[in-house]
C-alpha cells in the first residue's frame, strides 16, 4: 500500500492463513465429533478453512517482504 515497507496484503494473508489452518483442523475434528449446529453434515469448517488457507497462501506468496 505504500512505496516502502511490508504491504498490507501480506499481513492479511498471514492472518487468514493461520485462521484457515485452525478452522480446517476444527473441521476435521468435527468429522468425528459433529458440532451442535444446523447443517453440521455439510462439514463447513473443512471447506471454509481450506478456502481461507488458499486465499492466505496466495497473498503471502504474492506479497512476501523480500519481493
Amino acid at each position: 500500500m505504500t512505496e516502502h515497507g511490508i504491504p498490507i496484503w501480506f499481513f492479511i494473508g498471514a492472518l487468514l492463513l493461520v485462521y484457515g489452518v485452525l478452522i480446517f483442523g476444527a473441521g476435521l475434528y468435527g468429522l468425528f465429533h459433529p458440532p451442535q449446529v444446523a447443517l453440521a453434515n455439510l462439514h463447513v469448517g473443512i471447506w471454509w478453512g481450506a478456502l481461507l488457507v488458499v486465499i492466505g497462501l496466495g497473498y503471502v506468496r504474492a506479497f512476501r517482504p523480500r519481493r
Partner: protein
Amino acid sequence: MTIGLLLGDTATRLLALGPLDLVIVVLYFATVIGIGVYLKRYARTGEDFFMAGRQMTAWVAGLSFISANLSSLETMGWSAMAYQYGMLGAHAYLIGAIPAILFLAVVMMPFYYISRTHSVPGYLQLRYGEGARSVAGISFTFLTVMVSGASMFAMAKILNLLLGWDIHLSIWVSSVTVAVYVTLGGLLSAVFNEVLQFFLIWLGTLLVPILGLIHAGGWDAMMKAVKRNAPIVHPTVQNADFTSLWRNLGSFDTNPMGIDWFGMVFGLGLAVSFGYWCTDFLQVQRVIVAKDLRSAQNGTLIGAALKMCVPIIVTLPGLLGLAVLYAADGSPLVLVPESDPRARITHYTFNDVLPLLMGQYLGPGLLGLGVTAMIAGFMSGMAGNVTAFATVWTYDVYKPLFRGNADDRHYLAMGRWCSVVGVLVSIAAAYSLLWFSNILDFLQVLVFFFIVPLFGTVILGMLWKRATPAGGFWGFVTAILVSIGMWAYVHTFPEGYRPPPKATLGADAVVRVEREAGRIRAVTVEKGTVETVNVAADGAGETTVSGRPLVLPASVPGKDGDLPVQVLAPAVALAETGAVSKFGVEGVPLVLEPGVTLRSAVVSARFAPAAFNPDHTETIARSRKAKPMAVNMYSGWWSLVVCVLVTVGVSLFTKPKPDAELRNLVYGLTPRPDEGPCPWYEKPAFWATVVAVVLVAVNVVFW
C-alpha cells in the same frame, strides 16, 4: 431443524465461544497491535499521520472507504432493518448509496483533491470563511467522539448480551487497543486495519447467507417462507410486501416502512445519501488521501462496486431471519424492537437476527471468526472516528483558533495526543451511555441531521459561485436548527403520550398459567407483587387485593382503539411445581388473588423521544403510518430544502467573493489537472458507467 430460541427456554447468553474461538479473537488483537507498532516508523510528519502520506493506491483507498462504513453496528443494524422492513433494507446499499458515491467520485472529488484540503470543514473555510468552518469543525468533533463512544458502548453491550463478557473489560480492552495502534500509526494504521476488517467481515459473515439459503431450500423457497411468516412476525403490517424493492412503494400502506417512492428517492436517495457519502469527513478522508486524483476517483468507484455487494451479507440474513428462524414449538420466531417492553426478557430483538443465525450455523472456529469480524468492525469504526476527530480538531479547531504558526512536529504531537484524548472522551461518552442508554437511539439520527445541511452547503459552494459566505453560514446553521426542530416535533405530544399498558410480575410472584393448545390463555397471580403502567383506570397507588380476586383487563381503551395489556414475567415461581420460569404474553386477563400487592402507575409525557406522534409524523413524512426510518428520510429531505432555500436567499442579498478567491474551489473556476493518458480500463468515467448500469439492472431484477 428448529432450535429453542425463546429466552425462556435457554440461558440468556446467546452464543458460547470455545477455546479455539477465543484463540482466533486473541490472534486478531495481537495482529492489530503488531501492525500499529510496525507502522509507527512511517508516521513521521503531520502529512503522514493525518493523511497517511497521501500515498494510497486505488484499491486500498476503496477498501478503506467502504470498510469505514461497514462497522458491526452497520451489519447488525441493517440485518435488523431487513428483518423489520424486508427487501427495502437493501435500498441503503443501492439508491441510498451508489448514486451519491458516483457523484462523489466524478463531480466532487476533483474539488476536494485539487484544493488539497485536510478535511471537509477545511473546504468550508476556503470557500465560505471561518464562520462555516468553525460550526462544522466543532459540531463534527463533538459528534465524532460521541459516535465513537456509542460504538464502543454498543460493542460492550452486545458482547455482554451475546457472550456474557464483562462490559467494563470490553470497553477498556478495545479502547486501549485502538488507542495504541492509532496513536502509533495515525491514519495509515486505521486504514490498514480497515482493509483487514473488510476481509474479516466478508469471510466471517458470508457463510451465514450461504448456509441460510441452503437451509431454506434456495432463493424462491426463502421468499415463499418470508411471505408466509412475515404477517405472523409483523402483525401490524399485515398487507405489506416484504419481498420487493420498488413494487411496494406506490403507497404508504403496501410496504413495512410506511414510506412512498418520493421519500425513498428524494429523502434517502438524495438528501441522506448524498449528505453521508459526499460530506461525512470520516468517509471522504479515506479517498482524498489517495496518491493521485485518478486513484482517488477509482478508489471511490471500487467502493461503490463493493457497496452493491454488501446486501448479500446484510439484507439477506435479515430476510433469512424471517424464513429460517423457528421457535421450539415450530412457529416462526418473533423478534421485537429494542424499545419493546418484552425485549431481552421474553424475546430476542431485531438486532439479534445476525447473531442468532451465526449461532444456528457456525461451529467451532467459524463462530470465533464471525465474532472477530464483529469486534473488528466495532474497533475499526472507533479508530475511524478517532482519526477523523484528530484531523478535524488539529486542523479546523486548534490551528485556526488557538495556535496557527507552530511547526509540523507540534501538530504531529497534537495529533497523537488528540488520538489518546479522543479515545478517553469516547470512553467517557460510552460510560455516559451506560446510564443514559436511550441517547444511543438518537445519536445516529442527530448525525444524519448534521451531515445533510453540510452537504447542501458544500454542494452549493462547489457548483454555484454566487453563493456567499453569509449565505453558506446561515443556510448551514438554519438547516441544522430546522433538523433538530423536526426531530423534537415528531416526538412531542401536546395531549400527552401514554406508553402501552403493561403489567410486570415481581420476582416474589407465584403464578398459575392456564394454557390452551400450548398458548397462554390466562394468568393468575397467587402471591407476590404486580406493577402496572397505564392499566388501572382509577389512577396510581399501592393496594393489597382483599376479598374477591381482582381481574385486570386484557386490553384498555386507547385513542385509536383497544390496546392489549402486556403481561411480563421476567422471573416468577410456578405454583404447580415451584420452578422458576419467565414468559411474556399480551391480551390475556390477569387475575390477582387476595393478598397480592398491586402497584399502579399512570404515565403520560408531553415529550417522548422513543415514540412518534402520528399527527406530527404525518406533517413531516406525509403519512401517519410512517416508521422511524421513513421519518428520518423525509426529515433529511426537508432539511436539504431549507438549507438550499436559505443559502440562495441570503446569497442574493449579500456580497459574493471575487472570482480570484474561488479558483480551485468552484465549478467553472477549477481547471481539471491533466494526469496524462491512461488505458480505457483505468478511466473513472468508464467504471462509473459500469457501476451505474449494474445498479439499474439490480433494481430491475428485484423490482
